[in-house]
């Protein structure tokens, strides 16, 4: 097993699953502008996923392109963090999930911009501009909802308490990430936690929200151990190419 292939699947699958989830908001946003914003962010995520997975396929050298990797792997072959497969829920749930991920993505892409792997660094530098823009949007909504009405405040506070335990995967180091750091082409997930926490704490303080008490964290996404939600999502995402494998449209 090539560590760089595994590592790229983690990057690509986070973006792919989150992009697919945001796409489900098409036509369901609370207002037109937000409908467009969520799907625009989803489009950026799919674009990033395409770049990461296409590089993964190239490194694997088994003739699998980004579409093959996206549509013809089973649930236990996906390497996304558990956070991104949490259901969309209500608008506040989606915003909290997005905010927690964006704050991580900004730190991640910044770190990866210095990768010794030129192709990896190029995708990271490009993604960094987009993730910073996404964070600006999700952060603004955290403040607006947290500091909004009593109802919006209580809803996002509950979303935070429910989603925070699923951030474990984002900062979980293992053999793959150790090799990535040792060879200089990847970053140590654990090293991203402090800058992530700083952004989260500072935003929640402005939003009048409480940082949930530290508790047990769920991990497993990086080794293919997923929650039930992912299977429904993959079923919907993969049904067309699996039914008509050579279809063009």
């Amino acid at each position, binding site marked *: 097993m090539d560590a760089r292939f595994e590592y790229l699947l983690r990057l690509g699958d986070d973006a792919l699953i989150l*992009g697919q989830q945001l796409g489900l908001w098409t036509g369901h946003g609370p207002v037109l*502008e*937000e409908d*467009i*914003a969520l799907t*625009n*962010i989803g*489009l*950026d*995520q*799919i*674009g*990033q996923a*395409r*770049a990461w997975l296409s590089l993964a396929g190239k490194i694997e050298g088994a003739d699998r392109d980004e579409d093959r990797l996206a549509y013809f792997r089973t649930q236990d072959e996906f390497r996304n963090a558990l956070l991104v497969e949490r259901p969309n829920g209500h608008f506040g749930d989606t915003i909290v999930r997005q905010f927690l991920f964006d704050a991580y993505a900004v730190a991640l892409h910044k770190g990866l911009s210095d990768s010794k792997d*030129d*192709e990896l*660094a*190029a*995708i990271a*530098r*490009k*993604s960094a*501009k*987009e993730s910073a*823009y996404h964070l*600006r*949007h999700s952060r603004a909504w955290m403040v607006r909802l947290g500091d909004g009405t009593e109802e919006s405040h209580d809803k996002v506070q509950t979303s935070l308490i429910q989603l925070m335990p699923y951030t474990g995967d984002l900062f979980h180091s293992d053999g793959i990430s150790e090799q990535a750091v040792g060879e200089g082409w990847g970053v140590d997930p654990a090293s991203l936690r402090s800058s992530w926490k700083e952004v989260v704490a500072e935003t929640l303080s402005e939003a009048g929200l409480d940082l949930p008490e530290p508790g047990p964290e769920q991990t497993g996404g990086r080794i293919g151990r997923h929650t039930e939600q992912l299977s429904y999502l993959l079923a919907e995402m993969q049904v067309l190419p699996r039914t008509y494998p050579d279809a063009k449209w």
Partner: protein
Amino acid sequence: MRTADDWLRLLEMVPDPEIPVLNVVEMGIVRSVHADASQVEVKITPTYMGCPAMDAIADDIHTILTPLAKEEGKSLSIELVYAPAWTTDWLTEAAKEKLERYGIAPPGTTADKRALNGALPDVRCPHCRSSNTDMVSLFGSTACKAHYRCNDCSEPFDHFKCI
């Protein structure tokens, strides 16, 4: 036989599918053109990673250049590159003026220090030139634009996101 510069001039005939007043060279999407005895190689870079226009742009370049390359017995290859990352600074002043005439408020420069503290730039209405405008949404009709409104002439308009 055409030189790389000749091919670049031909690429100026390919409009951006979403913003047809600009061609793909003015947009900064075409990064380099290389021509040798056997092939013409064009490198293109996306404005945004998920920009759905990239496939259309590659198709349009093929439609215009492939027959001309064949005349010289050459093949055409189009490669998508991510580095260096596209920036709005690559839009020329002339391109920015065309954008404004077309009804899209052009981007400022990324050197604008206010962007560092998350402050929004002053955006001039492309219709009445008033600076009394508000951002409606950070995201607009395409991946590269944000949505604004003019408080003087009441018209909505797109602003090219500054990255």
